[in-house]
């Protein structure tokens, strides 16, 4: 259930990015979430609906890219896929590995709407709508 707390932090961050770019709305949010972050994507998506209500991200779509679990072996220097509870080297079996991917909890990008256009485009926009 900590997914709701994480979504509230996400909405705060997205709101800050939108405001600092002069945007009125957010139409999409893309996250990278690895299984070792301790966050379940499905629960995050459910919590997002609640956390986003009444904010400028209310109608935003949420895209969650699942990050693969990858480890790098200190012994044989191989990089390989691994399971969340078996982070051993697939090449030599050694457990002395370093996680290369899988614990991400990252706000990758947002799509902002109704952004104050750049001056040159603003110029053309106005003309377009004449």
């Amino acid at each position, binding site marked *: 259930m900590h997914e709701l*707390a994480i979504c509230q932090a996400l909405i705060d961050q997205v709101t800050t990015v939108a405001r600092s770019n002069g*945007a009125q709305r957010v*139409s999409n949010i893309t*996250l990278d979430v690895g299984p070792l972050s301790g966050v379940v994507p499905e629960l995050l998506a459910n919590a997002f609906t609640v956390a986003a209500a009444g904010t400028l991200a209310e109608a935003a779509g949420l895209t969650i890219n699942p990050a693969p679990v990858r480890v790098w072996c200190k012994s044989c220097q191989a990089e390989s896929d691994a399971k969340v*509870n078996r982070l051993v080297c697939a090449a030599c079996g050694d457990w002395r590995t370093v996680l290369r991917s899988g614990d991400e909890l*990252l706000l*990758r990008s947002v799509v*902002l709407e109704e952004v104050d*256009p750049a001056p040159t485009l603003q110029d*053309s926009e106005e003309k377009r709508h004449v």
Partner: protein
Amino acid sequence: MCDTCGCNVTPGNRDLAEGRQATQVLGSLLKVNDHQASHNRVHFNGHGVLSVNLMSSPGAGKTALLEATAELLDGDLRIGVIEGDLETENDADRIRACGVPVVQICTGTACHLDAHMVHDALHELDLGSLDVLFVENVGNLVCPASFDLGQHHNVALLSTPEGDDKPAKYPVMFRSADLVLLTKRDLAPYMPEFDATKAANYVRQLGNAAPILEVSSKTGGGLGDWTDWLRRGVTELRTNLAVPSASLGS
């Protein structure tokens, strides 16, 4: 002319022309919590206080460990405790009875402590009079692992009755541990199915080289290794911070 008919709006720049903008952020979702956690760490470092985040399932023996630790360290290392529970001051009362300063955080329905809750509690503690601050997290093997509190070390407890495969079932928690304590080992004769070697192997399979100690708060077994670990932690922290030895705990 192009401005008149709108043909200057191409698929490549349509988003910009329509007031849409894709913005790269690439920031941790927990940025605000992490920022507060760093701030907490500055507090701890400023006073040369080793902060230890105790995590386990409910009933694994965190409070009993702290009671036994307070007794064992009496007059040696000065300890303080921040207690996290959904409800009640029961655990805080137990720690207080040992003569240890304690602040209780009642999280209500929240399943974990975050860096802001810990920061609020720090205002009620005199860090200058402590060597080690324990944060006894909410009993939960899932959520607390995702939130940095500003601690120097994570300690995960795994009690004998829980079973030796908990590290494989809760990899996020046990991967984050800097020390794993196998607790209630006085029950080992009655629960031979708990294999300490297996438990250690499950921790290793998470790529975690953390030391694993077998302890019993009831009999005191193994607690000397635990307090040695704490002493080393305080010494290493203060060496790294180069705090003048005059300000070390008496």
